[in-house]
């Protein structure tokens, strides 16, 4: 079979698999961003998507809407973990393999509010952003991002999350927080989650 047909099929499959784990996060004031399910009732997003909002709305792919509560955040790496009273949605898989420049990557999110948009490219560079509280390793990709992609996953060809898109971070460059940082953030943040059913 023609390899480009097989590649299209593989892309369809990737999108079908990741869609249930993609959330839309709205802070009720300006626009909305994306988020990704990181466990039962846990939505990972960028802290700048949450802003200073007290009420947060999370919409899942099946159009169910939930009030979300901010349970942990780290401004240094622009990450936030939200909790919603929802179970039974498959979370995304966070990659444990080191990313390689030149590998295919896909950004999934809601650019300009349009739902579930996939943009492709390659991983351009493993670089560093010098922040006020120290250096932050980031991924740079040549995928097209727009407002609404923030907090959405950057996926590898296997559909695993290798980073969280955070385009605001570092000005005009499309950068993503690598999954290595996400993993250590989640390890701490999960401890703040309210046991199921209590929320």
């Amino acid at each position: 079979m023609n390899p480009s047909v097989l590649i299209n099929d593989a892309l369809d499959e990737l999108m079908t698999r990741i869609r249930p784990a993609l959330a839309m996060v709205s802070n009720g004031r300006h626009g909305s961003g994306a988020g990704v399910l990181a466990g039962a009732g846990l939505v990972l997003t960028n802290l700048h998507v949450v802003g200073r909002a007290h009420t947060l709305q999370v919409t899942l792919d099946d159009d169910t809407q939930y009030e979300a509560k901010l349970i942990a955040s780290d401004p240094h790496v622009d990450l936030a973990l939200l909790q919603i009273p929802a179970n039974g949605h498959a979370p995304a898989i966070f990659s444990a393999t080191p990313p390689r420049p030149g590998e295919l990557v896909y950004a999934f999110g809601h650019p300009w509010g349009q739902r579930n948009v996939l943009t492709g490219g390659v991983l351009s560079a493993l670089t560093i952003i010098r922040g006020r509280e120290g250096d932050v390793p980031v991924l740079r990709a040549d995928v097209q991002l727009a407002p609404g992609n923030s907090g959405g996953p950057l996926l590898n060809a296997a559909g695993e999350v290798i980073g969280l898109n955070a385009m605001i971070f570092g000005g005009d460059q499309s950068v993503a927080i690598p999954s290595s940082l996400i993993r250590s953030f989640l390890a701490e943040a999960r401890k703040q989650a309210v046991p199921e059913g209590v929320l």
Partner: protein
Amino acid sequence: MSNILVELSNSMAAATEKAAASTVSVNARRRMPASGIVYAPDLVLTADHVIEHEDGITILLANGTEAAAKLAGRDPGSDLALLRLEKERTTPAEAAMQASIGQLVLALGRPSPEGIEASLGVVSAIGGPVRTPHGSLDKYIRTDATPYPGFSGGPLVDAEGKVVGVNTSGFGRGVTLTIPADYAWKVAEQLARSGSVKRGYLGVRSEAVELTEAVQKALNRAQASGLLLVSVERKSPAEAGKLIVGDILVGINGQPVPDHDALFAHLTGEAVGKSIPMQILRGGELQTFPVEIGARP
């Protein structure tokens, strides 16, 4: 999970890794470094416009070694320059001598010590010849891969990591072009040998004129036009070859010369010093004059 997408992804990453071993950082300007391609173990090919100072050039090799280099030659016409490593030796890149429109390519660069950088695209167009600010380029490639800052002098590579061409933003107007590898490698070869690129020189001004049917019959080929010589420079190869104003140049080496581009295509560096038969129409008669092509000053 393994599927064709993962395979493709792995091969693009492998192509990047392979080509990255021969992609270096070139420090020869005040701003951020540019990129370069290892042409031979001691030679690095880069864009001419990124060489702003010839003294104290350093090259950051793929293995992290900072190496001193000297200018081996430059050709502003094609915006290529060749640098010679003083001590270190490294892995040369492999060139792909053909590119086709639509093929997958990666633009690579090493503008910082943080590592290789890549962007994905396809070959969008192949064109040429084109006039450049300091000369001309026979052939160029255009791609839609993002040219990040510092990518000038770096390679455009195919899916196997072979160099398809040299990326440069040096031709101005905000356009990034790729100098095809076959052309760039030829220029590099000449720069390595003599430090500059020779180009052929005839020493005439001409304009295209129509050829009558009778002339075409005498030529034994359909050729709508030839080049009327409107001036012949003094002490030029054309004068030495006895060409005069009013001659109509219709062929070189048995091939038709209907316009300037055709004449230009014969005045290559390889033609310099060679005696080449010029087919001339003089007073209604076809004659052949051997002319020794000179080197353009």
